[in-house]
């Protein structure tokens, strides 16, 4: 366990020193501060727009950070040959991979926590939201964090056998597909004109692909007019789902990385 934690803490340190990540984070934070002023551009209720916009900024920024952070992680170590010094120590490849992954989500968690805190602060100061409203609002970033952990595991998995550029588009594509496929599948299954074959195909794909849309819980937070049934059970279910899927990708990554020549 110790080697894993050592690699993870080193990875966090590296991540927060990377300028490109800090710039992305800075842009996200700037948008979060500017967001309250943009509500006037819209005809919609200011609170609704602000909620939607802030959650959108956090999600988008986190996704970009998650991909940029993880796609270079393994290839950089190989390219700079630092991996040899690590693997020559009593550290196995699986510990290296898991350590890198934990470090990535640790850094990601810190950055997301910063953005979420700013959002909470803005709502508390400008919108005079009470504790229960703020707690409701905080649910979405927590779910986004699990979503980004899943995204990071997708990128880590691909980084064991493809180049960073390809990985960037692969992981991004998977995120887009996994976010869109549930509503798309819903459209297909509820449309009476859809062929049975297409429905079965959509069902299979939707079951196999990592489903990022499970974590898009912002709709009832932005428009709070629907009671969510068994909310706690749902969050628990999607968290376990995320852990299972992260497990699949990490084990898959370990198996591939283990066979790779470095």
């Amino acid at each position, binding site marked *: 366990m110790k080697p894993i934690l050592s690699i993870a803490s080193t990875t966090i340190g590296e991540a927060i020193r990377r300028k490109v990540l800090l710039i992305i984070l800075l842009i996200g934070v700037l948008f979060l501060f500017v967001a309250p002023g943009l509500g006037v551009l819209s005809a919609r209720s200011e609170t609704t727009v602000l909620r939607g916009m802030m959650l959108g900024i956090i999600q988008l920024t986190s996704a970009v950070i998650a991909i940029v952070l993880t796609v270079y992680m393994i290839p950089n170590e190989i390219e700079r040959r630092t991996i040899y010094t690590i693997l020559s120590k009593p550290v196995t490849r699986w510990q290296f991979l898991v350590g890198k992954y934990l470090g990535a989500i640790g850094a990601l968690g810190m950055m997301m926590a910063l953005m979420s805190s700013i959002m909470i602060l803005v709502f508390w100061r400008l919108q005079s939201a009470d504790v229960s409203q703020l707690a409701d609002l905080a649910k979405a970033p927590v779910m986004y964090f699990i979503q980004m952990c899943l995204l990071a595991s997708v990128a880590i998995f691909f980084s064991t056998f493809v180049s960073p550029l390809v990985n960037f588009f692969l992981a991004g594509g998977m995120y887009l597909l996994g976010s869109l496929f549930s509503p798309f599948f819903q459209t297909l299954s509820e449309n009476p004109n859809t062929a049975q074959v297409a429905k079965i195909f959509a069902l299979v794909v939707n079951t196999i692909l990592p489903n990022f849309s499970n974590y898009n819980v912002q709709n009832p937070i932005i428009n709070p*007019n629907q009671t969510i049934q068994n909310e706690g059970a749902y969050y628990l279910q999607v968290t376990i789902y995320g852990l299972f899927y992260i497990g699949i990708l990490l084990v898959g990554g370990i198996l591939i990385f283990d066979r790779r020549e470095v």
Partner: protein
Amino acid sequence: MKGPKKSVLYGILGVCFVGQGLLMRGLGYQPSQSDYDPVTVENKKTGVFRVVKKLKPGVDKPAFQGIYSSWSRDFAPRKTVAAAGLSPDQLLFALAGFREMIAGILWVRADSFFDTGNYDAILPIIRLVTILDPSQIDVYATGMWHIGYNFTDEEQRSDRRYIPSALALGKEGCRQNPETYEMFFETGWMWYHKIDDDYPQAVKWFEQAQTKPDMIPARKNLLAMAFQRDGQPDAALDTYSRLLNKAESEFDKDQAFGNRQLRDTIQNNIDTTLVRMVQRGWVAEKEGRPLTGYDTDPAFDVGFSAKATIIDSRVIKFEGTWNVLPVGTRVRVVLRDKDYTVNLDGKDTDVGKPAGMNWDYSNDVNLDPPRDRTFMMDQLFVRNRRFSRKVDLSKDPTMYPFTEKEYWLEFYYNPRSAPPHIQDKFGYNGEGMTDKNFLRNDVRPGQKLPNGKELPQKVVYVRLPISRDMILRRGEWQDKVPVIKTPNYVETANNYDKDETLIDIPSLRSGGGAEKK
């Protein structure tokens, strides 16, 4: 490999794969969107109304509900829009975040199009905004009004081909926002005011609006008005009584001016309704007593006759007689394809009906009306017992394409739509109205009385065939003036009746029969 054995890793892989699939799909039958009914409940602490989705009776609870089923019930971005068949790019828009912000900005943009009169440009914005942000009720309500009312020809006749789309938008708004009364009310209003003929539909939607706890009390009166238009004054009275009880209790709690005004208005409406129910013979009819002596007896002969002269290509002059002297009569004239068909589920379906259309034929919001269909509807105002109106259809060929060969020219009068001073004589269902030639009771459904008797809905209706060649003054009609008229039409140069005899309409204000010359 050092560390865990490969067999262990494959084992973990298998367990995780099965586990995620099980969590995603659940066990047993997974309810879909259509298996749930939205129920509005009030949070007693906050006073906020919310929707709870409850399984319909007969649908079993799943043994273990999967994530997908729960997500599509509670978190999906407005399922019914997705189910309506959005394209992937529209879905992408809807899911890319910032939906409410983009929708709001687009709506501001639409406002500038309103100002410049660029109404066509507003339609796609309305659609996009309702997709992006289906909770924005203002857009649904304004969009519905815009589609239903604002597409007009040069003479301000609205394009009725759009009304099914407006209603479809209203229905979608109701599905998307079941927690509030607003879209139910707006949809009811479209039936009540714009369509102004199919009152059971107005009643249906207003009744649904009343079930929503946030409905403004003053607007609830409209249900009673719709009941009266539908020929059910007893149901109107029940509604008023219920509203009065509520208004009185509100006034007892808080003697504010608004509460007093509401209570007094309802009391006044009840008084008026009771007087009308008695004087129009409705109570006697219900109790099976003879109608002698009531305002609707004897039935008044309206003496309808009509003539249509195609004075130029696509220009029609309507003339005719209507023996009712008091101002307020409007005779509906419709010129439409003989088979008013639209493409539904891949096949052409005739949605035409006498002097109207099956307005409710579409559940899909199609902002492109059937452009190859022709449907002109207008009102002929009666003055001095005659009507005369020139209708010019030549300036708007897209609205009146005349692609078919055969058309119906229809004249229609429904006493349910009449103003109260005329309805006092004609009754709620036309009991006090007759016509030697064109009285029909098979055009619109009648009213079932509590005693089981069927009260037929009397209307004046006649339809005359007319061809495209006649309307366009082509072929044999190039040099001849086509004239279509009812057999009883009598030519007269005199538009004013010298001996202006008032019909006997006892007014509520004078308390009895009006003077007869």
